Protein backbone atom coordinates (compact mmCIF):
# COMPACT_ATOMS: atom_id res chain seq x y z
CA UNK A 1 0.00 0.00 0.00
CA UNK A 2 1.24 3.46 -0.82
CA UNK A 3 2.36 5.38 2.23
CA UNK A 4 1.95 9.13 2.19
CA UNK A 5 5.18 11.06 2.68
CA UNK A 6 4.55 14.29 4.52
CA UNK A 7 6.71 17.23 3.66
CA UNK A 8 6.16 20.81 4.65
CA UNK A 9 6.31 22.96 1.58
CA UNK A 10 5.03 26.47 2.01
CA UNK A 11 4.13 28.28 -1.17
CA UNK A 12 6.39 31.25 -1.90
CA UNK A 13 5.34 34.65 -0.58
CA UNK A 14 4.15 35.93 -3.95
CA UNK A 15 1.39 33.32 -4.07
CA UNK A 16 -0.24 34.94 -1.04
CA UNK A 17 0.56 38.40 -2.39
CA UNK A 18 -1.11 37.64 -5.75
CA UNK A 19 -4.14 36.20 -4.03
CA UNK A 20 -4.49 39.33 -1.88
CA UNK A 21 -4.02 41.60 -4.89
CA UNK A 22 -6.56 39.69 -6.97
CA UNK A 23 -9.06 39.95 -4.17
CA UNK A 24 -8.53 43.70 -3.88
CA UNK A 25 -8.74 44.24 -7.62
CA UNK A 26 -11.76 42.11 -8.44
CA UNK A 27 -13.78 43.13 -5.41
CA UNK A 28 -12.75 46.73 -5.87
CA UNK A 29 -16.00 48.44 -4.89
CA UNK A 30 -16.64 46.22 -1.90
CA UNK A 31 -13.10 46.83 -0.70
CA UNK A 32 -13.40 50.54 -1.45
CA UNK A 33 -16.34 50.79 0.92
CA UNK A 34 -14.39 48.97 3.61
CA UNK A 35 -11.52 51.34 3.00
CA UNK A 36 -13.78 54.38 3.25
CA UNK A 37 -14.98 53.05 6.61
CA UNK A 38 -11.38 53.02 7.77
CA UNK A 39 -10.76 56.46 6.27
CA UNK A 40 -13.71 58.04 8.09
CA UNK A 41 -12.57 56.80 11.47
CA UNK A 42 -9.00 57.94 10.91
CA UNK A 43 -10.14 61.31 9.52
CA UNK A 44 -11.95 62.03 12.78
CA UNK A 45 -8.90 60.95 14.76
CA UNK A 46 -6.54 63.09 12.65
CA UNK A 47 -8.75 66.16 12.82
CA UNK A 48 -8.92 66.02 16.60
CA UNK A 49 -5.16 65.59 16.72
CA UNK A 50 -4.77 68.66 14.52
CA UNK A 51 -7.04 70.63 16.80
CA UNK A 52 -4.90 69.56 19.70
CA UNK A 53 -1.71 70.54 17.91
CA UNK A 54 -3.09 74.02 17.22
CA UNK A 55 -3.76 74.59 20.91
CA UNK A 56 -1.28 77.17 22.11
CA UNK A 57 -2.59 78.00 25.55
CA UNK A 58 -2.45 75.11 27.97
CA UNK A 59 -5.30 75.57 30.31
CA UNK A 60 -6.32 72.36 32.02
CA UNK A 61 -9.95 72.39 31.06
CA UNK A 62 -9.61 72.58 27.29
CA UNK A 63 -6.74 70.06 27.34
CA UNK A 64 -8.93 67.59 29.21
CA UNK A 65 -11.74 68.18 26.74
CA UNK A 66 -9.44 67.48 23.81
CA UNK A 67 -8.06 64.33 25.40
CA UNK A 68 -11.57 63.13 25.83
CA UNK A 69 -12.24 63.88 22.16
CA UNK A 70 -9.12 61.95 21.08
CA UNK A 71 -10.25 59.01 23.19
CA UNK A 72 -13.70 59.12 21.62
CA UNK A 73 -12.28 59.34 18.14
CA UNK A 74 -10.09 56.29 18.79
CA UNK A 75 -13.06 54.29 20.04
CA UNK A 76 -15.04 55.34 16.99
CA UNK A 77 -12.15 54.31 14.77
CA UNK A 78 -11.90 50.96 16.51
CA UNK A 79 -15.60 50.23 16.11
CA UNK A 80 -15.73 51.43 12.50
CA UNK A 81 -12.62 49.59 11.37
CA UNK A 82 -13.40 46.39 13.27
CA UNK A 83 -16.90 46.31 11.88
CA UNK A 84 -15.79 46.76 8.27
CA UNK A 85 -13.04 44.17 8.53
CA UNK A 86 -15.20 41.63 10.37
CA UNK A 87 -17.80 41.93 7.64
CA UNK A 88 -15.30 41.55 4.84
CA UNK A 89 -13.75 38.43 6.39
CA UNK A 90 -16.90 36.66 7.52
CA UNK A 91 -18.56 37.01 4.12
CA UNK A 92 -15.68 34.98 2.73
CA UNK A 93 -15.79 31.91 4.97
CA UNK A 94 -16.71 29.76 1.99
CA UNK A 95 -13.74 30.97 0.03
CA UNK A 96 -11.55 30.15 3.02
CA UNK A 97 -13.04 26.65 3.19
CA UNK A 98 -12.41 26.16 -0.52
CA UNK A 99 -8.80 27.29 -0.32
CA UNK A 100 -8.32 24.90 2.59
CA UNK A 101 -9.66 22.07 0.44
CA UNK A 102 -7.03 22.89 -2.16
CA UNK A 103 -4.34 22.34 0.43
CA UNK A 104 -3.63 25.78 1.83
CA UNK A 105 -2.12 25.79 5.30
CA UNK A 106 -3.82 27.83 8.02
CA UNK A 107 -0.84 30.18 7.89
CA UNK A 108 -1.39 30.92 4.21
CA UNK A 109 -4.98 32.00 4.80
CA UNK A 110 -4.01 34.30 7.64
CA UNK A 111 -1.20 35.69 5.49
CA UNK A 112 -3.57 36.55 2.63
CA UNK A 113 -6.01 38.37 4.90
CA UNK A 114 -3.20 40.13 6.71
CA UNK A 115 -1.74 41.43 3.44
CA UNK A 116 -5.15 42.54 2.22
CA UNK A 117 -5.87 44.33 5.48
CA UNK A 118 -2.48 46.04 5.40
CA UNK A 119 -3.06 47.39 1.92
CA UNK A 120 -6.64 48.44 2.68
CA UNK A 121 -5.60 49.96 5.99
CA UNK A 122 -2.68 51.85 4.50
CA UNK A 123 -4.75 53.32 1.67
CA UNK A 124 -7.77 54.11 3.85
CA UNK A 125 -5.93 55.64 6.74
CA UNK A 126 -3.57 57.65 4.52
CA UNK A 127 -6.51 59.27 2.76
CA UNK A 128 -8.39 59.65 6.04
CA UNK A 129 -5.49 61.17 7.93
CA UNK A 130 -4.68 63.53 5.07
CA UNK A 131 -8.24 64.71 4.57
CA UNK A 132 -8.98 64.98 8.29
CA UNK A 133 -5.91 66.99 9.19
CA UNK A 134 -6.02 69.23 6.12
CA UNK A 135 -9.69 70.07 6.59
CA UNK A 136 -9.23 70.84 10.26
CA UNK A 137 -6.09 72.89 9.58
CA UNK A 138 -8.00 74.83 6.93
CA UNK A 139 -10.79 75.52 9.38
CA UNK A 140 -8.33 76.65 12.02
CA UNK A 141 -6.53 78.85 9.55
CA UNK A 142 -9.82 80.63 8.78
CA UNK A 143 -10.16 81.49 12.45
CA UNK A 144 -6.57 82.69 12.56
CA UNK A 145 -4.82 79.74 14.14
CA UNK A 146 -1.80 77.99 12.64
CA UNK A 147 -0.65 74.40 12.57
CA UNK A 148 2.95 73.81 11.53
CA UNK A 149 3.37 71.54 8.53
CA UNK A 150 5.80 69.30 10.41
CA UNK A 151 3.01 68.65 12.89
CA UNK A 152 0.64 67.85 10.03
CA UNK A 153 3.12 65.28 8.76
CA UNK A 154 3.42 63.79 12.22
CA UNK A 155 -0.33 63.54 12.51
CA UNK A 156 -0.67 61.90 9.10
CA UNK A 157 2.04 59.41 10.01
CA UNK A 158 0.40 58.66 13.36
CA UNK A 159 -2.97 58.28 11.65
CA UNK A 160 -1.62 55.78 9.12
CA UNK A 161 0.09 53.84 11.88
CA UNK A 162 -3.04 53.71 14.04
CA UNK A 163 -5.22 52.89 11.04
CA UNK A 164 -3.03 50.05 9.78
CA UNK A 165 -2.64 48.55 13.22
CA UNK A 166 -6.38 48.61 13.86
CA UNK A 167 -7.19 47.21 10.41
CA UNK A 168 -4.73 44.34 10.65
CA UNK A 169 -5.79 43.49 14.21
CA UNK A 170 -9.45 43.59 13.26
CA UNK A 171 -8.88 41.35 10.23
CA UNK A 172 -6.52 38.88 11.82
CA UNK A 173 -8.82 37.73 14.62
CA UNK A 174 -11.65 36.43 12.40
CA UNK A 175 -9.12 35.19 9.81
CA UNK A 176 -7.34 33.03 12.39
CA UNK A 177 -10.68 31.75 13.63
CA UNK A 178 -11.77 30.92 10.09
CA UNK A 179 -8.44 29.29 9.22
CA UNK A 180 -8.58 27.00 12.25
CA UNK A 181 -12.14 25.87 11.60
CA UNK A 182 -12.55 22.44 10.03
CA UNK A 183 -12.88 22.99 6.29
CA UNK A 184 -16.36 21.43 6.28
CA UNK A 185 -17.58 23.96 8.84
CA UNK A 186 -16.15 26.89 6.90
CA UNK A 187 -17.84 25.65 3.74
CA UNK A 188 -21.19 25.32 5.50
CA UNK A 189 -21.26 28.88 6.78
CA UNK A 190 -23.90 30.90 4.96
CA UNK A 191 -23.69 34.65 5.19
Amino acid at each position, binding site marked *: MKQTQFKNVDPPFWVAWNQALASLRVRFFRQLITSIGVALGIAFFASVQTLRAAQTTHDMQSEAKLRWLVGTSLVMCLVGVTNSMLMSVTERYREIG*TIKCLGA*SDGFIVKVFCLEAMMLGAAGSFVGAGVGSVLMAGGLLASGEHVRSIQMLEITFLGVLVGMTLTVLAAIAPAIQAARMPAAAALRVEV
Partner: protein
Amino acid sequence: MSERDVVVRTANVVKQYGEGEAAVRALNGVTCEIYAGEYLSIMGPSGSGKSTLFNMIGGLDKPNEGSVFVNSVDIAQLTPRELAFLRCHTIGYIFQTFNLIQVRTALENVTLPMLFAGVQPEEAEEKGAALLATVGLGHRLHHRPTELSGGQQQRVAIARALANTPAIILADEPTGNLDLKTGQEIIDLLRSLNTERGVTIISATHDHKMLDVSDRIFHIRDGQLADVETRGEADAEAPLAHGPSASMP
Protein backbone atom coordinates in the same frame (compact mmCIF):
# COMPACT_ATOMS: atom_id res chain seq x y z
CA MET B 1 -11.55 -8.73 -6.41
CA SER B 2 -10.65 -9.55 -2.83
CA GLU B 3 -7.03 -8.51 -3.15
CA ARG B 4 -7.64 -4.97 -4.34
CA ASP B 5 -5.79 -2.04 -2.80
CA VAL B 6 -7.80 -0.20 -0.20
CA VAL B 7 -7.43 3.55 -0.56
CA VAL B 8 -9.91 4.66 2.09
CA ARG B 9 -11.01 2.69 5.12
CA THR B 10 -13.35 3.84 7.86
CA ALA B 11 -13.76 2.02 11.14
CA ASN B 12 -16.85 2.60 13.25
CA VAL B 13 -17.08 6.29 12.44
CA VAL B 14 -19.42 8.28 14.65
CA LYS B 15 -20.12 11.97 14.09
CA GLN B 16 -22.36 13.93 16.36
CA TYR B 17 -23.46 17.53 15.96
CA GLY B 18 -24.50 19.52 19.01
CA GLU B 19 -24.44 18.33 22.59
CA GLY B 20 -26.69 16.84 25.23
CA GLU B 21 -30.42 16.72 24.48
CA ALA B 22 -30.08 18.51 21.16
CA ALA B 23 -27.34 16.22 19.87
CA VAL B 24 -27.86 14.72 16.44
CA ARG B 25 -25.95 11.64 15.38
CA ALA B 26 -25.24 12.21 11.71
CA LEU B 27 -23.14 9.06 11.47
CA ASN B 28 -23.65 6.12 13.74
CA GLY B 29 -20.84 3.65 13.29
CA VAL B 30 -19.91 3.40 9.63
CA THR B 31 -17.32 0.83 8.63
CA CYS B 32 -16.38 0.56 4.98
CA GLU B 33 -13.54 0.04 2.56
CA ILE B 34 -13.06 1.86 -0.70
CA TYR B 35 -10.79 0.32 -3.32
CA ALA B 36 -8.22 2.11 -5.42
CA GLY B 37 -9.47 2.89 -8.91
CA GLU B 38 -13.16 2.28 -8.36
CA TYR B 39 -16.07 4.57 -9.10
CA LEU B 40 -18.15 4.67 -5.96
CA SER B 41 -21.42 6.44 -5.35
CA ILE B 42 -22.78 7.24 -1.94
CA MET B 43 -26.58 7.32 -2.00
CA GLY B 44 -29.07 8.31 0.59
CA PRO B 45 -31.91 10.70 1.33
CA SER B 46 -31.19 14.19 2.61
CA GLY B 47 -30.14 14.12 6.23
CA SER B 48 -29.00 10.51 6.03
CA GLY B 49 -25.43 11.43 6.85
CA LYS B 50 -24.20 11.15 3.28
CA SER B 51 -22.49 14.53 3.23
CA THR B 52 -21.07 13.96 6.69
CA LEU B 53 -19.47 10.71 5.54
CA PHE B 54 -18.15 12.57 2.51
CA ASN B 55 -16.58 15.20 4.78
CA MET B 56 -15.02 12.50 6.97
CA ILE B 57 -13.46 10.68 4.04
CA GLY B 58 -12.14 13.93 2.63
CA GLY B 59 -10.50 15.03 5.87
CA LEU B 60 -12.72 18.10 5.96
CA ASP B 61 -14.02 17.22 9.40
CA LYS B 62 -12.97 14.93 12.22
CA PRO B 63 -15.09 12.08 13.62
CA ASN B 64 -16.11 11.98 17.29
CA GLU B 65 -15.38 8.26 17.49
CA GLY B 66 -13.78 5.73 15.21
CA SER B 67 -11.17 6.44 12.59
CA VAL B 68 -10.74 7.21 8.93
CA PHE B 69 -7.69 5.95 7.08
CA VAL B 70 -6.64 7.46 3.79
CA ASN B 71 -3.75 5.56 2.20
CA SER B 72 -3.49 3.81 5.59
CA VAL B 73 -2.89 7.10 7.41
CA ASP B 74 -5.25 7.82 10.30
CA ILE B 75 -6.63 11.29 9.57
CA ALA B 76 -7.40 12.02 13.23
CA GLN B 77 -3.70 11.72 14.08
CA LEU B 78 -2.59 14.37 11.60
CA THR B 79 -1.57 17.89 12.53
CA PRO B 80 -3.37 20.71 10.65
CA ARG B 81 -0.30 21.06 8.44
CA GLU B 82 -0.19 17.38 7.54
CA LEU B 83 -3.91 17.49 6.88
CA ALA B 84 -3.37 20.40 4.50
CA PHE B 85 -0.67 18.36 2.78
CA LEU B 86 -3.02 15.39 2.44
CA ARG B 87 -5.77 17.56 0.97
CA CYS B 88 -3.29 19.12 -1.40
CA HIS B 89 -1.69 15.93 -2.73
CA THR B 90 -4.00 13.00 -2.19
CA ILE B 91 -7.56 14.28 -2.54
CA GLY B 92 -9.30 16.41 -5.14
CA TYR B 93 -12.65 17.97 -4.30
CA ILE B 94 -15.63 18.74 -6.49
CA PHE B 95 -18.67 20.46 -5.00
CA GLN B 96 -22.30 20.85 -5.92
CA THR B 97 -21.88 24.62 -5.91
CA PHE B 98 -18.57 24.46 -7.84
CA ASN B 99 -16.78 26.60 -5.22
CA LEU B 100 -14.30 28.15 -7.58
CA ILE B 101 -12.33 31.09 -6.26
CA GLN B 102 -14.33 33.95 -7.72
CA VAL B 103 -11.49 36.44 -7.90
CA ARG B 104 -9.14 34.23 -9.92
CA THR B 105 -9.31 33.09 -13.55
CA ALA B 106 -9.95 29.49 -14.61
CA LEU B 107 -6.25 28.87 -15.12
CA GLU B 108 -5.33 30.44 -11.77
CA ASN B 109 -7.94 28.29 -10.05
CA VAL B 110 -6.27 25.20 -11.48
CA THR B 111 -2.69 26.29 -10.78
CA LEU B 112 -3.31 27.34 -7.16
CA PRO B 113 -3.23 23.81 -5.69
CA MET B 114 -0.03 23.13 -7.66
CA LEU B 115 1.58 26.25 -6.20
CA PHE B 116 0.59 25.00 -2.74
CA ALA B 117 2.38 21.77 -3.61
CA GLY B 118 5.55 23.68 -4.48
CA VAL B 119 5.38 23.29 -8.27
CA GLN B 120 7.24 25.97 -10.22
CA PRO B 121 4.88 28.59 -11.72
CA GLU B 122 5.77 27.95 -15.38
CA GLU B 123 5.32 24.22 -14.96
CA ALA B 124 2.05 24.77 -13.08
CA GLU B 125 0.70 26.99 -15.84
CA GLU B 126 1.62 24.52 -18.52
CA LYS B 127 0.03 21.64 -16.66
CA GLY B 128 -3.01 23.76 -15.77
CA ALA B 129 -3.58 24.67 -19.41
CA ALA B 130 -3.24 21.00 -20.39
CA LEU B 131 -5.76 19.96 -17.72
CA LEU B 132 -8.23 22.61 -18.83
CA ALA B 133 -7.82 21.36 -22.39
CA THR B 134 -8.53 17.81 -21.17
CA VAL B 135 -11.85 18.92 -19.70
CA GLY B 136 -12.63 20.81 -22.90
CA LEU B 137 -11.94 24.37 -21.75
CA GLY B 138 -8.67 25.04 -23.57
CA HIS B 139 -10.19 28.24 -24.98
CA ARG B 140 -11.40 29.65 -21.65
CA LEU B 141 -8.16 29.86 -19.67
CA HIS B 142 -8.37 33.50 -18.68
CA HIS B 143 -12.07 33.79 -17.93
CA ARG B 144 -13.22 34.29 -14.37
CA PRO B 145 -15.90 31.99 -12.89
CA THR B 146 -18.59 34.66 -13.28
CA GLU B 147 -17.97 34.60 -17.03
CA LEU B 148 -18.47 30.83 -17.30
CA SER B 149 -21.63 28.71 -17.40
CA GLY B 150 -22.42 26.21 -14.66
CA GLY B 151 -21.17 23.27 -16.68
CA GLN B 152 -17.98 25.10 -17.57
CA GLN B 153 -17.41 26.05 -13.93
CA GLN B 154 -17.80 22.43 -12.92
CA ARG B 155 -15.26 21.46 -15.59
CA VAL B 156 -12.80 23.96 -14.14
CA ALA B 157 -13.48 22.43 -10.73
CA ILE B 158 -12.70 18.98 -12.14
CA ALA B 159 -9.47 20.22 -13.71
CA ARG B 160 -8.59 21.82 -10.37
CA ALA B 161 -9.32 18.61 -8.51
CA LEU B 162 -6.91 16.80 -10.84
CA ALA B 163 -4.15 19.38 -10.45
CA ASN B 164 -1.85 17.43 -8.15
CA THR B 165 -2.76 14.04 -9.66
CA PRO B 166 -4.60 12.91 -6.53
CA ALA B 167 -5.38 9.30 -5.72
CA ILE B 168 -8.98 10.18 -4.88
CA ILE B 169 -11.53 12.58 -6.26
CA LEU B 170 -14.40 13.38 -3.92
CA ALA B 171 -17.46 14.75 -5.64
CA ASP B 172 -20.35 16.03 -3.53
CA GLU B 173 -23.42 15.98 -5.80
CA PRO B 174 -21.42 17.22 -8.78
CA THR B 175 -24.48 17.29 -11.04
CA GLY B 176 -26.89 18.73 -8.48
CA ASN B 177 -26.83 22.27 -9.87
CA LEU B 178 -26.66 21.34 -13.55
CA ASP B 179 -29.28 20.59 -16.17
CA LEU B 180 -29.72 17.06 -17.53
CA LYS B 181 -27.49 17.35 -20.56
CA THR B 182 -24.64 19.17 -18.81
CA GLY B 183 -24.92 16.76 -15.90
CA GLN B 184 -24.56 13.83 -18.27
CA GLU B 185 -21.45 15.43 -19.80
CA ILE B 186 -19.90 15.88 -16.37
CA ILE B 187 -20.68 12.26 -15.49
CA ASP B 188 -19.11 11.05 -18.74
CA LEU B 189 -16.05 13.17 -18.06
CA LEU B 190 -15.66 11.78 -14.53
CA ARG B 191 -16.13 8.24 -15.78
CA SER B 192 -13.52 8.66 -18.52
CA LEU B 193 -11.04 10.16 -16.06
CA ASN B 194 -11.70 7.19 -13.83
CA THR B 195 -10.98 4.64 -16.58
CA GLU B 196 -8.13 6.53 -18.26
CA ARG B 197 -6.23 7.81 -15.24
CA GLY B 198 -7.28 5.21 -12.72
CA VAL B 199 -8.27 7.85 -10.19
CA THR B 200 -10.68 6.69 -7.50
CA ILE B 201 -13.93 8.61 -7.66
CA ILE B 202 -16.20 8.85 -4.65
CA SER B 203 -19.35 10.80 -5.17
CA ALA B 204 -22.33 11.58 -3.01
CA THR B 205 -25.33 11.74 -5.30
CA HIS B 206 -29.07 11.62 -5.89
CA ASP B 207 -28.64 11.33 -9.61
CA HIS B 208 -29.49 7.91 -11.06
CA LYS B 209 -27.42 8.56 -14.20
CA MET B 210 -24.48 8.74 -11.83
CA LEU B 211 -25.41 5.37 -10.35
CA ASP B 212 -25.45 3.74 -13.79
CA VAL B 213 -21.74 4.32 -14.26
CA SER B 214 -20.74 3.42 -10.69
CA ASP B 215 -18.81 0.28 -9.86
CA ARG B 216 -20.31 0.15 -6.40
CA ILE B 217 -22.99 2.04 -4.51
CA PHE B 218 -23.16 2.63 -0.79
CA HIS B 219 -26.65 3.22 0.55
CA ILE B 220 -26.65 5.32 3.70
CA ARG B 221 -29.70 5.36 5.91
CA ASP B 222 -29.98 7.00 9.34
CA GLY B 223 -26.25 7.42 9.66
CA GLN B 224 -25.48 3.80 8.89
CA LEU B 225 -24.22 1.93 5.87
CA ALA B 226 -27.44 0.09 5.00
CA ASP B 227 -26.45 -1.66 1.80
CA VAL B 228 -23.59 -2.07 -0.64
CA GLU B 229 -24.52 -2.75 -4.25
CA THR B 230 -22.13 -3.74 -7.00
CA ARG B 231 -22.72 -2.50 -10.51
CA GLY B 232 -24.65 -5.44 -11.94
CA GLU B 233 -27.39 -5.24 -9.33
CA ALA B 234 -27.60 -1.47 -9.63
CA ASP B 235 -28.17 -1.64 -13.37
CA ALA B 236 -31.17 -3.86 -12.93
CA GLU B 237 -32.66 -1.83 -10.10
CA ALA B 238 -31.93 1.76 -10.88
CA PRO B 239 -34.69 2.63 -13.36
CA LEU B 240 -37.42 1.23 -11.11
CA ALA B 241 -36.11 2.52 -7.84
CA HIS B 242 -35.31 6.06 -8.88
CA GLY B 243 -37.61 6.78 -11.77
CA PRO B 244 -37.13 9.80 -14.00
CA SER B 245 -36.11 12.21 -11.24
CA ALA B 246 -32.69 13.07 -12.51
CA SER B 247 -31.16 15.67 -10.31
CA MET B 248 -32.48 16.82 -7.02
CA PRO B 249 -30.49 19.29 -4.97
